[in-house]
């Protein structure tokens, strides 16, 4: 069932790392995450100086709340913008170039191909997160960061990455045009991220539904060091749902008429 997963994974990783899009995305990610980290830590630094003369202020100053949590929140949003650019060519380019016909005449199963591409994007996504390591190292010199919060925040980013990638692959599978794929992925992810903000407009039941659907809701706990299994379940189910839909799109060619 997963025949061909490794060859497709290796091929897509190779092509990804040869692609200028990946390096542009990595650079943008590094710049933006670095900027947000700098602005949060600079603000924290200013408040720390003020707090040296104000004991009340020094009590509420907290590295995790003022730097770590917003930093990882910002990273999540940056990745929501960039992952569509990593996934846009996965299937769209193959369909446009005709290589998808070549691919599906090798002994490669549909799920092997899909998961190979999925994990290839995940690996590229994780490689981009390397740019956050210097920020974490700096944090250790600034104070005593809570490693539990940092670890759970990275887990949250990883799980969100699975979800972003799964939806991005779906968007890539329904079109031959990379730009259309990126726009569908970005628009869909932004909608699913922000839909919870409308919870107060929808009444009690609808508000709860909107809040549950919203991805932003499910990342909050990770940023404060809580690994809620409901949130883990949400991201796995979200990813599985869009991967299943993508496999159905690929299997459309098996419709006999």
């Amino acid at each position, binding site marked *: 069932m997963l*025949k061909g997963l*490794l060859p497709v994974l*290796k091929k897509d990783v190779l092509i990804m790392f040869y692609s200028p899009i990946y390096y542009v995305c990595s650079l943008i990610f590094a710049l933006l995450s670095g900027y947000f980290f700098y602005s949060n830590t600079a603000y924290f630094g200013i408040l720390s100086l003020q707090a040296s003369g104000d004991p009340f202020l020094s009590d509420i100053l907290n590295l995790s709340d003022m730097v770590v949590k917003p930093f990882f929140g910002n990273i999540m949003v940056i990745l929501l913008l960039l992952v569509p650019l990593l996934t846009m060519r996965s299937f769209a380019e193959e369909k446009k170039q*005709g290589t998808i*016909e*070549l691919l599906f005449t090798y*002994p490669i199963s549909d799920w092997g191909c899909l998961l190979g591409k999925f994990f290839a994007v995940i690996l590229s996504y994780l490689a981009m997160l390397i740019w956050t390591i210097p920020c974490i190292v700096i944090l250790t010199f600034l104070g005593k960061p809570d490693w539990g919060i940092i670890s759970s925040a990275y887990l949250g980013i990883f799980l969100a990455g699975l979800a972003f990638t799964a939806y991005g692959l779906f968007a890539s599978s329904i079109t031959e045009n990379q730009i259309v794929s990126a726009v569908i992925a970005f628009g869909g992810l932004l909608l699913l991220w922000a839909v919870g903000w409308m919870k107060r407009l929808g009444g009690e039941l609808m508000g709860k539904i909107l809040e549950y659907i919203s991805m932003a809701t499910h990342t909050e706990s990770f940023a404060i060091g809580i690994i809620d299994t409901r949130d883990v379940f949400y991201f796995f189910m979200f990813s599985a749902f869009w991967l299943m839909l993508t496999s159905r799109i690929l299997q459309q060619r098996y419709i006999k008429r």
Partner: protein
Amino acid sequence: MIQVKGVTKYYGQRLAVKDISFEIMQGRVVGLLGPNGAGKTTILRILTCYLPPTEGSVLVAGIDSQKDPLGIREKIGFMPENVPLYGDMSVLQFLGFVADSKGIAARDRRYEISKVISQCGLEQQEKRLIRHLSKGQRQRVGLAQALLGNPQILILDEPTAGLDPAQVLEIRQLVVELGKEKTVLLSTHILPEASQVCNEVIILNNGRLIAQGTLSELREKLKRSEEMRFFVRTNADFKTMLELKNENFVVDVNEKQKGEYEILLKPEVDASGKLSKTIVEKGISLFELRSMELSLEEIFVRLLIYEDGHTN
């Protein structure tokens, strides 16, 4: 080796191929011919298990395409039309991916890749990016990836499309060599190529199979139902030769050049004897008389006309 029975394929409401049946024995080189839109690519996509048939069955190397498509894909090497390739990879990297996909063991990979690179004359291009290759070089990469893993069945869709004459000759020679060991199904528009390279042909038109067999078999089939053609060289002028049309067994007389004529006769036993006797009786000096065999182009066109006439 390949058995196709009653294959029909619809794309939605549009019929692509209808009730196609043929068999290709091991070790044959078979040409799949037909005009644009005849259904050749559809048949190849069904054989390679990229698409399923709407009706009918396909057995490749004894494997049913509906039950074990991955098993069939392991037995075949396929070169699609226009050779889609990954432009961002080098030739070596791409062939490495193909070897990996086809399940070639890591210890054998280098040898197998070197072998196909050598067979396809790609030694100078192995480290170059595919997008930097010429059309002919890309075709050869396409053929190399089909050959990887030494499949016993090769399916080639227009392998010489867009190549210059020297490259066309190279690819044809390679296919002839491969045909000595493998079963080859070759889709082509270029009829002389099919007649040079293939043992037999399958002709499609409007999604239907209209003829199958060796060139001799197809000629025989047409001879029985069509005129017999003779080449005649005489000392007579065209006006004199046209008088032959008064004979009831002569259908037409065409001048090819001065003193050389093509004469069409109704199918008869000993037609050539009757013709030579008639020419001599008219006082015409007969220098040469021989039967003209139909070329594949003529067979193809006549079959299409016959088929279109019946369909209409």
